């Protein structure tokens, strides 16, 4: 077997094993979006009037609107969680072990990314099944067409996590990631409210939201769940994924990156 493939299987297997052993993490990953869906969205059900914007062809309940955003939320938290895992790996030394492998570093990091993306996709599908039981359904092909969108989103957010992990010195700094990355990314996006609603209150906020790569990831998921293409969101998410992955590879490069400086 090619050493590249062996490394891929080993790293994905390790990610999966870590995830399976942390049952609490799986439940937490589901509880978070479910609270938003069953409590927050239920409260706002009648409060928010939604005009018909693509991909929707008719009026929808607020619960239906926020599900793609919550799928993105699962992937966002998972991406950050895997960056936390990387910092932990670095602290306990297993990261050094991984990076001393003769395989190119970009491949090792990509394997890590694929592992965390696969896990967040499982979480998203579990969430979609629960949403389905709650009565929020999509056209049947949407469950299939959302898969490539989830892969791209997972890679983009995972790459962001990787890039961030190269900058985080200690585990304690993770709170900073929550405050300065996860929350702004989530709230300044189209996950909870449509962008036209944002524009009603502030044009500046609308522009920030429109530039947020997470907005594009959410819109990509939203359109994919309706089996509809969204070239702009696809291109923006892909571009962000390439940018973040490049940043992560640079960050982990022993010659130039942050890892060397941290020793």
């Amino acid at each position, binding site marked *: 077997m090619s050493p590249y493939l062996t490394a891929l299987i080993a790293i994905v297997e390790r990610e999966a094993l870590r995830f399976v052993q942390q049952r609490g993490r799986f439940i937490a990953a589901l509880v978070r979006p479910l609270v938003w869906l069953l409590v927050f969205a239920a409260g706002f059900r009648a409060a928010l009037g939604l005009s018909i914007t693509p991909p929707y*062809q*008719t009026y929808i309940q607020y619960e239906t609107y926020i599900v793609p955003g919550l799928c993105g939320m699962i992937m966002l938290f998972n991406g950050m969680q895997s960056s936390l895992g990387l910092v932990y790996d670095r602290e306990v030394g297993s990261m050094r072990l991984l990076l001393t492998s003769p395989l190119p570093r970009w491949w090792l990091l990509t394997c890590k990314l694929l592992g965390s993306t696969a896990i967040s996709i499982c979480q998203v599908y579990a969430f979609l099944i629960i949403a389905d039981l709650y009565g929020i359904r999509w056209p049947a092909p949407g469950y299939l067409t959302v898969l490539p969108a989830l892969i791209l989103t997972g890679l983009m957010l995972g790459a962001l996590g990787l890039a961030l992990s190269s900058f985080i010195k200690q585990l304690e700094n993770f709170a900073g990631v929550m405050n300065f990355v996860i929350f702004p990314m989530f709230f300044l996006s189209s996950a909870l409210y449509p962008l036209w609603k944002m524009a009603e209150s502030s044009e500046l906020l609308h522009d920030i939201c429109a530039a947020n790569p997470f907005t594009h990831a959410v819109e990509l998921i939203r359109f994919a769940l309706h089996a509809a293409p969204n070239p702009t969101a696809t291109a923006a998410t892909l571009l962000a994924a390439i940018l973040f992955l490049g940043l992560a590879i640079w960050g982990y490069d022993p010659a130039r990156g942050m890892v060397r400086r941290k020793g």
Partner: protein
Amino acid sequence: MLLHLGRNTSLATLATALTLTAWAPAPAEEIWISNEKEDTLSVIDVATLEVIRTIETGERPRGITFSKDYSVLYICASDSDTVQVMDPETGRILHDLPSGEDPEQFVLHPDDRHLYIANEDDAITTVVDTETRKVVAQIDVGIEPEGMAVSPDGKIAITTSETTNMAHWIDTETQMLFANTLVDSRPRHAEFTAGGTELWVSSEIGGTITVFDVATQAEKAKIEFEVQGIHPDRVQPVGFEFTGDEKTAFVALGPSNHIAAVNAKTYEVEDYILVGRRVWHMDFNTDKSLLFTTNGVSGDVTVVDVASREPVKTIKVGRFPWGAALRP
């Protein structure tokens, strides 16, 4: 050789015929919508679910209905105080009918000749002969009559009066009232069902539908509505229609922005379906697989798949759509 040629020719003819059949355009089904604040009609093509024509009418068109052969369309032009008769092919007004003041809703008698018109401002129901274009009778009813219905056998006409809160039962032979029954506040719409043995009347402010036994004019059931997350004051039943098998009634619930699917046998509400803002009336396509609801405030029509009870599309029409009628 001749036989051979003949076979080929007939095969070719058959193939051409089949191709032509396959390519022949299906008869275009249309849903006609009256836009009460734009003085127009919007025509929706059922196949494409798009507005294909917009036609000007008199002032404030509300109730609309086609003649049995769909050769003419009757329009209640409320603020023009007339019922207009339109050629649906050309969109030209052929003539007006004397309707009494402020006609809001009407119903065409099964004889395809007599229109029963509710005159909201005059507290009367006017009966017009569409052939002679003359008023046949004017019947005093309660204040602000609105909902109109005729039994399938044509023997009974119903007018509901918004302020008197009554359903008035009219004998169409004598054109006289023979019964008045109380319903909840502001009755808006009436329909006969179950082969004409039941009469349903919706009450907008009361938030109910009252079901009457036609033989005795006695109240048989009362249907109440409750939409999750919507204040009860905003749940206001107005127009309603029955599916082909008469097992389900779809009820427009006004400013609650929902329609209800009611089991017509048990009178239980089975589903609430989100549509546009302030839903007034509705109509089906020919096979009753699609339902078209007029959403007054949002100025659009929501198309509901009857089998799955899912809204599939909302189509922008004119300002304040009100009535809906199918033209197969």
